[in-house]
């Protein structure tokens, strides 16, 4: 963003203001995440930077909250983590299957009522979560699935499928349908064509949709608050309760782990996006 040498002074000033604003906004976006790391290693119970921490005194830092997270007595985090992963994995699988099939249908140019159906399928992403939560709770209570893992998995499939539908439809928009016709003309049946030709080509889109569905489920708290019983507690529920009652450093230890997890997911999502763009022949 170097300015040409003939730029007038007032535009030069404007340019530096612009850069300053951008720096501030980037800082505003990313800095809050980094305040969590050092505090999670705090030796004390308070959520403020102690004098020792400011002077980088090694005694002011400790792993006690991480130990508490893993070994602490009456600790809910183990069960919560187990539940969260089980629910998120099943919800992701369900979302991927239903969402990919729907996206294949929606991408066909023969699809009738495409607009209204697409709007319906995306709606769980748009409707405020609190309303989705109330509606899904009424349904699950009626069919006796409230406070069960199955009920929560189904609820998260509802919330996760829009992401899969969107990403897979986007991948399919650049899809060359002549390859499937070629496969068909060479004697392949539709299932075989899908598994051998279509799926490998749209796989990056499917997986990145799956990542969205996973994160949605793993991070979801509003709907689970309505549905979960004591045995179905998840990491977000525990964090929510913790943040409402007392903000303990153990929560920050958990939060640090979650930030590491989301960094890993971000890296995989970015790699997939680039691979998908390469496969679709979008060069930059």
């Amino acid at each position: 963003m170097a300015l040409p040498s003939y730029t007038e002074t007032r535009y030069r000033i404007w340019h530096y203001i612009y850069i300053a604003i951008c720096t501030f906004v980037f800082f505003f976006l990313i800095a809050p995440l980094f305040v969590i790391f050092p505090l999670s290693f705090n030796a004390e119970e308070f959520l403020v930077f102690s004098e020792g921490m400011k002077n980088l005194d090694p005694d002011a830092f400790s792993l006690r909250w991480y130990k508490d997270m893993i070994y602490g007595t009456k600790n809910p985090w183990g069960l919560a983590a187990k539940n969260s992963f089980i629910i998120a994995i099943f919800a992701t699988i369900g979302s991927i299957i239903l969402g990919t099939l729907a996206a294949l249908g929606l991408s066909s140019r023969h699809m009738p009522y495409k607009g209204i159906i697409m709007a319906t399928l995306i709606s769980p992403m748009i409707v405020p979560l609190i309303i989705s939560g109330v509606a899904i709770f009424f349904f699950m209570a009626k069919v006796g699935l409230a406070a069960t893992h199955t009920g929560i998995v189904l609820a998260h499939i509802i919330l996760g499928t829009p992401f899969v539908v969107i990403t897979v439809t986007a991948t399919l928009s650049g899809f060359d349908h002549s390859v499937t016709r070629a496969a068909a003309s060479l004697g392949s049946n539709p299932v075989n064509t899908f598994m051998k030709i279509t799926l490998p080509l749209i796989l990056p889109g499917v997986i990145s949709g799956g990542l969205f569905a996973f994160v949605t489920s793993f991070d979801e708290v509003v709907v689970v608050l309505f549905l979960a019983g004591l045995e179905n507690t998840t990491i977000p529920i525990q964090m929510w309760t913790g943040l409402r009652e007392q903000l303990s450093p153990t929560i920050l230890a958990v939060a640090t782990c979650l930030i590491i997890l989301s960094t890993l997911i971000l890296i995989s999502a970015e790699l997939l996006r680039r691979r998908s763009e390469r496969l679709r022949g979008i060069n930059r």
Partner: protein
Amino acid sequence: MSSETKQILTTDGIPLEVSLKKAEKKNKIKAFLLVAPLLLFLIITYVFPIGEMFSRSVDDKMITNMLPKTFKEMEKWDGKELPSEEVFAAFYYDFKVLVEKQEHGKLGQRLNKEKNGFNSITKKLFRQVKRKKIDESISIKEQVMKVHKRWRNVEYWQAIKRTAPPYTMSKYLKGMDMYYAADGSIAQVDEDRRIHRILWLRTLEIAFFVTLFCFLMGYPIAHLLATLPMKYSNLLMICVLLPFWTSLLVRTASWMILLQQQGVVNDFFVMIGLVADDNRPEMMYNKVGTYVAMTQILLPFMVLPLYSVMKTISPSLMRAGKSLGGTPFVAFWKVYFPLTIPGIGAGCLLVFILAIGYYITPALVGGASGTLISNQIAFHMKQTLDWSFASAMGLMLLSGVLVIYWIYNKLVGVDNIKLG
């Protein structure tokens, strides 16, 4: 010409047109069958339950079913003076059935919501009925009126009559701080008790300002990301995407740490001398906290659509504008800005839709003056258990969101939503 066209046959001897139509229909069914599982799943588990919320929100059948004879007799009553002996008798017989089923308590509670004082007089009547004090061979009206003086008050009978229709809009009126007055007209709640209207206005206000802040902060950085060379912009993009992928609760927690009175932001203000150490401002549990945290959390949803639109604008357009004599400001305002309007529309609508239904962040950092309509819905679902009122408020919110969603769909198209 057309007759000749029709004569084209396929090898099976079927006219081509028919054959094509058949193939087209087959393809349509195939495409639809692929969508069907998800569509069916969503309709059963999601669309119907939302519809059920509606029937729950207007449902008022409880009393209609409890007092069938009374309401039948009341059809003849003009509602001005005390009802006739028949109405009293019908009410008494209905009430006797309820006593046998032990449901008289529910009736009392429900009627008490319609008019204060019903609970105690139904309890009094219950005792008389239980002890079989009421003689059915003589005038029931006289005896019921003797149970308590309120049974002689016509207002209480009017209140019963108001509960006759199986459907009611009263929950929706309550959501707008209105109610049905004694004469059936719609009245406003006293000025100092209009809590819901404050919440609606506050929800709109916060959603509007969060959208505005997101736009003001998102536009410059989206522009920077779109104009920087790839290798720098990819790096900076992480600053947008990492918060996007990070748990909402983690981000809210970090704001709770930053904004507390002994927190980093206050420390910084003290350090640069903006505030005195013993006079640290309260930045959490009020609107400030809600604004700051929600803006940071929703900012990626503004930046991403803006970025994808700005990416498609050729830099030569700005150069052309400048070479034709426009100053950089004129070139920006007349050339660049109008081209980014689709992105602005998409980003603003998305952020507004998300902000208007926000629940978690306001509940944690909002305190009493930062709570939104969603928090009120959750409160009625979990604390007061007034599910029909929660449903009514939810649907009022939903109708607003659907209007914006419809506009979004017209302007942007749902299939153009970009993620990451």
